[in-house]
């Protein structure tokens, strides 16, 4: 079953093209790597898949939901780990996760479970503004998988993570998690190594994956 089906997807920013002619198909359990230089449209693509942006033209089906009409179906099934951790800085890690748990109807035990899984059990009650970027990233990852989403959207998930932390997060957001994933990364080799399908973007349009992508 296809988890993601995009056909000539288009997204504009006024008159400027952010994404155009993007077509891709991803099956359940597979990983899609999205590669390209800065400003190529990778984050835009991720945000469209998350339901945060509506497509302007073309067809898009994510987890069985037609976009933009059925965007409302996505939040419950999608875990988004973007550039912003989406955590309230004045609240603690535990309070933040509990808030998200309540939004998704998930129990508090899962929060404790995840805190332990990302190695944050000790500092779970410190306000997020006191934590280093690496620790915040761990909490953000926990937030993204809290509701056991079918699709993970990862925008440079290993930024700010030391090797130990990256290893901790592997079973949650890595290949080993078995989830369908879309991965945006600047580490071309690494990304290609852990993905089944890949797409290169240049100025919003599909381009061959290779050195020219970054010119």
């Amino acid at each position, binding site marked *: 079953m296809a988890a993601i089906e995009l056909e000539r997807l288009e997204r504009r920013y006024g008159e400027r093209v952010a994404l155009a002619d993007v077509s891709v198909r991803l099956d359940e359990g597979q990983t899609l790597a999205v590669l390209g230089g800065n400003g190529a449209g990778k984050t835009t693509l991720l945000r469209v898949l998350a339901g945060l942006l509506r497509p302007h033209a073309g067809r898009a089906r994510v987890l069985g939901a037609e976009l933009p009409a059925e965007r*409302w179906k996505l939040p419950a099934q999608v875990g988004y780990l973007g550039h912003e951790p989406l955590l309230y800085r004045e609240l603690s890690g535990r309070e933040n996760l509990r808030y998200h748990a309540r939004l998704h*109807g998930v129990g508090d035990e899962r929060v404790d479970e995840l805190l332990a899984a990302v190695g944050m059990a000790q500092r779970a009650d410190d306000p997020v503004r006191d934590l280093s970027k690496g620790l915040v990233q761990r909490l953000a990852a926990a937030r993204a998988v809290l509701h056991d989403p079918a699709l993970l959207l990862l925008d440079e998930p290993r930024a700010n993570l030391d090797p130990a932390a990256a290893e901790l997060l592997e079973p949650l957001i890595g290949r080993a998690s078995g989830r369908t994933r879309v991965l945006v990364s600047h580490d071309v080799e690494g990304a290609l190594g852990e993905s089944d399908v890949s797409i290169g973007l240049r100025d919003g349009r599909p381009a061959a994956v290779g050195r020219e992508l970054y010119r």
Partner: protein
Amino acid sequence: MIAGARAILRKDLLIELRTKESVPAMVLFSVTVYVLFHFGLDRDSLDGELASGVLWVTLLLAAVIGVTRLFAAEREQGGIDGLLLAPVDRTSLFVAKAAALFVFLTAVELVAVPAFALLLLGPGLGGALPELFVILALANLGVAAVGALVAALAAETRARELIVPLLLLPLLVPLLIACAQATEPLLRQDAGPEELGRWLSLLSLYDVVFVLLSIAVFDFLLED
């Protein structure tokens, strides 16, 4: 959907309790404005229309602060993506934010109204209290609904701090008229004729119109 609205409301109240950024500022602002009015009007005590007017104008100006800060926590965490990614519909989001504003306004009034009575009011408040509660409750409902709408409209514009007062205050004029007129007889030295009925009706009509309108259009904000 109520669970979603409740979770968001709880989060906002928790953050306010933690940071204490909105409510104390609004209270302090109110008291400062009372002092300004004392000097500006060169009066030690007010009653009737003047008292009613000073009280309500001050409360509405303080409300502007609360409205400007309504989405502050979201902005600090990098935007409203968090709210958009939550499995909560826009109506619940609106209800949560409006409810938070309602709670903040009530908290402010718990201090600002007695402060007003202490500093500037000639006649005592005692007898007026039951009616005043009703007026305040209806007023808070209206301000909460309009305030949440304006906050969302201005949430992602560059000129937010300018736009919120310029947008909110004219929209609140009918509410101000109703509240000031309703409160005026309550604050008079000599008991005068009360026309609470007509002003409460206007206030209720205002509340109904803006709650329904805000719920209807909220869907179109905060998306994309």
